[in-house]
C-alpha cells in the first residue's frame, strides 16, 4: 500500500487514489488527420515497462486533482511526483 504525496494535499494512503495509466500521452490535436495506425498508436499502445515508468494518478477521494508520478514498477518505489503539465524529472 503506497504512501503517496499528493502535490496539493500531502501524504495520503494509496486507497484515496486512482491510477490512470501511462503519462505524457497527449491527445492528438487533429485526430482526423491521422491514419488508422497513428490513431491506434495513441489509443491503444502503452509501454508497460519494468523500471521507472511515468504514470498519471488522481487523488479521487481527496482533492480530485490529477498529477504525474515516476514509479519504479519493479519495486514500486515512487521516484518523483509532479504536477500536470510539468516535465518529467531527469532519470
Amino acid at each position, binding site marked *: *500500500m*503506497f*504512501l503517496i504525496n499528493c502535490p496539493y494535499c500531502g501524504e495520503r*494512503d494509496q486507497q484515496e487514489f*486512482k491510477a*490512470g495509466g501511462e503519462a505524457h500521452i*497527449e*491527445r*492528438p490535436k*487533429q*485526430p*482526423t488527420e*491521422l491514419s*488508422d495506425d497513428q*490513431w*491506434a498508436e495513441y*489509443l491503444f499502445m502503452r509501454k508497460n515497462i519494468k523500471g521507472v515508468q511515468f504514470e*498519471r494518478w*488522481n487523488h*479521487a477521494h481527496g482533492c*480530485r*486533482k*490529477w498529477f504525474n508520478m515516476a514509479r519504479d514498477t519493479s*519495486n*514500486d518505489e515512487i521516484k518523483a511526483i509532479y504536477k*500536470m*503539465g510539468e516535465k518529467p524529472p531527469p532519470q
Partner: protein
Amino acid sequence: MTKNLRVKSSEFIDETSRISFKFDGKTYYGFKGDTLASALLANNVHLIGRSFKYHRPRGIMTSGSEEPNAIVQINPNSNITEPNARATEIEIYEGLEASSQNCWPSVNFDIGGINNFLSPFLPAGFYYKTFMWPKSFWEKYEFFIRHSAGLGKSPTTKDPDIYDHRNIHCDVLVVGAGISGILAAKNAAKNNYKTLLLDEKNELGGSTIFETNENKKINNTFSSEWLKKEISELKNIKNLEIKTRTSVAAYHQYNYLLARENLTDHLEKKDKKNKIRQRLLKIRAKKVILATGALERPLVFNNNDRPGIMLSSAVKKYSDFYGVACGVKNIFFTNNDTAYESALSLHNKGIKVAAIIDIRENSDAKIIKKTNDAGIKIYWSHTIVDTSGYKRLSDVSIMKLSNDGMSVTGSKTSISCDCLGIAGGWTPAVHLYTQSGNKLTFDEDRNVFVPKADNSAQICVGSCGGDFELDEIIKNLSNKLKNFLNISQTDFEDISLENDKETSKRNIWLLPSDKPTGKTKPFVDYQNDATAKDIKLALREGFRSIEHVKRYTTTGMGTDQGKLGNMHALGIIADTAGVKMGELGTTTFRPPYTPLTFGTIVGRNVGEFFDTFRRTPMNDWHIKNKAEFENVGQWKRAWYYPINDETMHQAVQRESKAARKSAGILDASTLGKIDIQGSDASEFLNRVYTNAWSKLAIGKCRYGLMLNEDGMVFDDGVTTRLGENHYIMTTTTGGAANVLSKLEDYLQTEWPELDLYLTSVTDHFATASLCGPNSKKILNKIIPELDLSDENFPHMSFKEVTIDKIKCRIMRISFTGEQSYEINAPASFGEAIWEKCIEAGKEFDITPYGTETMHLLRAEKGFIIVGQDTDGTMTPIDLQMDWIVSKKKYDFIGKRSLYRSDTMKENRKQLVGLLTEDPNIVLEEGAQIVSELNQKPVEMLGHVTSSYFSPNLNKSIALAVVRDGKNMRGKKLFIPMENKNISVTVSSTIFFDEENKRINA
C-alpha cells in the same frame, strides 16, 4: 494414563488459579498462564491430531506460532466453531473446549490411518496425477478427498463476534519483544521517537525471559533477571506503546503493516461478552525494526514425526517457562550446541535426560564438559536411523555416521525414551522482511538465509538479522540502533557479558538411514506430509524451479507455510540437484505470517455496513407505499409498487398501462447531475458529446450521447442550458461518478485552457418525473400561474418556477414517449413536492411506478439503456443512432475512432427490435440468437438485451444486438432455448407511437 508432569513451579504460571478445559471430550486441568499445549503436556497428552495425507498420529512439536502439527478445532460442538487453531498459541481459560482435527472417528482410532500403510501408493503429485482423470470424476474424488482429509470444520452460522480496525502512525515500530526488540524500543522511545512495540505472546522477553544459563550472563546476573529489570523500566517511558498478543500478519511496501491484536481469545466466555474480539491494526511506521527472532530447525530423519518428537528449544521452554516435563525419559538429537542447553536445563530440574545423540565428531564448548559432568551420555558421530511407537515415541535406533555423513555404519543401538528433542540449528524469522519486498542472501558457512541489507527505513536486529550469540546480538544491536536512529549512544552498550559461544555445527539436510530412502519416511513438511522422498521424486520427474517443486510436493503449503521445513526442502533439492543453496533462491513468504480470521479482515464492515446505501429524499414515501426496491449501484430504487397480492409482473403491467392511459410518477432523483459553469461550457459540451451544443438556446434541453475515445457509447442523458454560461447535465444513475471523473480528467489534463467548473449536484436535487396524457393537467393544478402551452413550454425546454416558495426547475423531457415533466426540487423538499404531485394527481388516478415500468415504457419506444443494451462494444452507428453524431464538428471524444476500419465494418453487431412469432412468449434477456437451427457449430449472431411483455401493445417485445442487424429487417431468426426454439422476426427498435405523436398529445 493421566500423569502429572508439572515438575517445578514457574513464575509465569499461576498455580493458585486452576483452570478446567476439555480436549476431545475429556476434562483436564491446567493453570492460568498455560497454553493448551503446555496444559496437555502437563497431563502427558502428546497425541493431538492426525496428519493431512497419511493420517499419522502427530503431537506437539513447538511452543509457538510455527507449530505444524498440534492444530485443533475450538468449540468443536458449536456452530461457531473455529478450525486450524494452534494448541501452542491458545491460552487456556475456564470452559475451553478443543478437539483433534483431521481424524475420524477419533484421534485414537482413525480410519484414514490406512493411508499410512498405502503410502507407497501416495507419492508426490498423487492427487494431481490420479484425480485429474477422467475429468468428469473430479466431483466424486473431491467428495472422497474432502471427507478423508478434513481440514477442520468451518463455522456454519454468522460470526457473532465484534472485530475492529484501528489506524496507527508511529515513528518507530518494533516487531518482536525479545531482548533485541525490548532494547530497541526502549532506546527509540527514550530518544523521542514515538514508538510501538508488538509481540505475539502475552509475555514480553522472548526466550531470554526464562534463560538461566550460567554461561550467558549479563552484568553478572542471569540474562532473564537483567531483562526483567529492563522490562520493568518500560512503563515509565513516555512515547512507548506496547501491545502484546499482537502478531504482525503482513508487511507491505512503504512500511505499511497489518497486525492482529487479540483481545479476548484468552478470556472465559462470560468475560468475552460484548467485547471486541480482535482488532486489525493498520500501521504506518516511519521506521521499522524487525526483531522477530529465529525458529529452531528440526532434523530430517526416518520417522521423525511421532508424538513425543519435539524441537529441543520447545522442550526447554515447556520446562523452564511452563514448568512442564515433556517426557519422563528424554533424549536429544542435535547438530549443534543448543540441545545441550536444553538437556542441562532439564537435568537441573531433575528431569531425566537419557542421552544426547550428536552428528558432530565433537565440540569443545564449555557446556559439553558440564553435560559430561552431569553424567549424560553423548553419542558423537551418531544419527537416528529410525524411531518407533505408534501413538507415542517409545524408542529410537541409532547408528554411527560415516565420515562423509552420507551413510551409516556399524551396528544399531536402541534407546528407549518418551520424548526426543531435536535441534537442527536456527533459521532467522525473515518472513516479514521478505514480505516487505527485500531480498535475502545465503550464508554458506552457517547455512542460513539472512537479510541482504538494511536501509534507512528498516533494519533487522537480533537473531532475525542473523546474530545468534548474545554478545554479537548486543554489540550489533547497539551499533545498528545508533546508526538507524541517528543517536550517539545506547543505554546498554557498556553492559558486561558472559557468553559461552557455540563452537561448531554440522549440517546434513537429510540424515541417512540403514534403509534406502525409498523405504523411509523422513518428513520435511509435517503439516502437508511431504517427505524427502517426495522432493527427490519431484526432481527425478524433472521439476527444477523451487516454486514448482513446492507446489508439486505441497511442501510449505500448509497453514504454517512450512516455517519449520522449508530450509530442509531447499537443502535436499540443492544436494540432489548438485547446486548451491544460494543459487536456488527461496520460495516467497506471503502474508499473512499466521492465518487471520475473515472477521478481523472485514472489521466493522459487515451486514448493513458492508457497503453504503444511497436513498432518495422520497424513500420513506416508497416504503410507506409498499414499494419493492432494487439496488442500482449503491442506490436503493423503488422497483415496483405491488397492490395487495400482485406479482411483480402484474404490478408492472398495471403501472405501465396507467402511465400511458392517464398519469404516472417516477422517482428519478438518482440520475447523475453535474452543474457546469464557465465561459467555455458550450465548447466543452461540444467536445464531450457527439452532437452540437453551441446553438442550444437558453432554456432548452438536449439529449446527448457520450463516447469513449475508442468510439464506444459511454453514457447518455439530457443536458439543459440554464444560462449563457450555465448548464446542468444529467447522466445515467450508474454512470454518474464515472462521467464526472472522465470530464474532470479531460478538463485537467487535455484541455486545461478551458474556463469552466464541474460540480456534482446529484444529491442536491430530488426529481419527480410526471408522465402521461394527464401530466399537464396535474402540473397545472400545482402551478396554475405557469403557462403550460406547447408554445410557451414546449417539449425539450425548461422553466424555473416556485412551488410553495420552493424554487424548482422543471424540464419537459420524456423517457417514456409520453408528455412528461421532470420537477427538480432541492433535496430537502423532494418528498413534499412528490406528495404534492400525488395529491394533485389523485383525480387522474396518478400511478407511482418504479424502475421496472420505466424500463418497459422506454423499451416500447426503443430508447436504449447504456449498460443494458450496450456493453462497451457498441458505437452510436451500431445503435442506429447515426442522427446524433455530428458530421460538422471537427472533433469530439471518440470521433476519430468511428472512422477506424473496424468500427466502419458493415457486419458489426447492431441494435434491432425482435418480435416473437407467438406474441405471448417473452424472451430471456441474454438469450443467444441464431439464423440456422441445423447448422453445427452454430454461429451466434447476437443476444437479447431487453425483453418485456408490453401491455400497451399486448405482445412481447425485445431489443437485441445482432450481427449485420441493420440489413435484417423482416428476417426470421431463432432463439434456441433449453427445451424449445423460439422464432422471432427482426423489427424496428421503435414498437410504440413511431411518429412520436404522444409527446405533445
